[in-house]
């Protein structure tokens, strides 16, 4: 699981072009949206692309993403469950 989280962080940094961040800057439980990394609805769509391309998981309705994309923890848990 922790390996998955580290991989995820690197993928997030690349997919979202977070050029100033490193894997160490993202805490597992830190909120990704709003006050956390300051991500927005466009990033949520990029997360959907990331999950499909890297993990074969399809999220057809962007509103489902809200819960899943809360943090690296929640993302990893969702991937584990659905892969």
């Amino acid at each position, binding site marked *: 699981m922790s390996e998955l989280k580290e991989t995820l962080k690197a993928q997030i940094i690349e997919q979202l*072009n977070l*050029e100033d961040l490193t894997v160490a800057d993202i805490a597992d439980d830190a909120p990704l949206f709003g006050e956390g990394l*300051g991500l927005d609805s*466009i990033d949520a769509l*990029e997360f959907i692309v990331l999950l*499909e391309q890297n993990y074969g998981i*399809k999220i057809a309705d962007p509103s489902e993403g809200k819960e899943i994309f809360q943090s690296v923890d929640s993302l990893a848990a969702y991937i584990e469950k659905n892969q």
Partner: protein
Amino acid sequence: MNMYFIHTIASISHQDSFQVPNVFEQLEKLGDDSDIVSPNYKEYVPPTALRRLGPVLRMGLTASIECRNNVDADFDAISVGTALGCLKDTEKFLVTIHTTTSDFLSPTAFIQSTHNTIGGQISLGLKNHAYNMTHTQNNLSFEVALIDAMMCVNEGKQNVLVGAADEKIDFLAQAQPDLIPDTHPLTSGASFFVISPKKGKTSIGVRDVYTNFNATNSDKDIQNFLSKNDISTDDINVILSSSEQSFSDKQETLNYLDYSGMHYSAPAFALHLAHDYLLSKDKQLALIINDMCPGRLGLTLVQKQ
């Protein structure tokens, strides 16, 4: 006679032109391998926004923020010209749609590909709710944006942001000369200005702009334009042209494309040059001739009062 006074200028170009008092001081003719001289964008744009911005957006937004930093009030209108817009994101999304087989496509390049992303990012970056227009008309994109900005002033606006920005991508060379002329090396650039009905520090401003979309006799158009403004050719101190135009030995002439390189927002850089020329040499009149594309003529008269 209306004057549209220039209060501040911010240019990002292949010259050392950003935050310099006189752009002529370090001006050099560009070679084939010149590069954009970028300011530190991070000082202007927060990282969450910057990570998504392609070159033309970085340049346009940063030049606009710099203009805002140099004046006292929020812009009451924003008029942006761009001929080819966000080419990098456009190409990126073209590659995505032609190579991705998945049901899910990365949306960021598409979102950033529309021409009005420049103006939109300026309004977002400055939290500005005012009039916001994007004009695109090949080599005359800046002139039409300027005409709009001048109308805004006529309508009572006091602090109008006007500028133009274009970026090069490597692929653009493939589309020469059909999409853009090949007389000069391809470059990128953004020049933004704040114009106002009130005098600024320099009392230099735009006096008149003329466009012709079926220009068959540019000499005659120039004569008519000048006589409409009660000016004779000998009154002009400097001609900044996109070709080798000159009337007589009474004035200096320069081809601004030698300094900006080839992009359709170069006439905006020429206005920066004209301003700094009149200021540093204490002269009165400059004429910008934009004849980058056959049949499409733009004339801009710049005056120091």
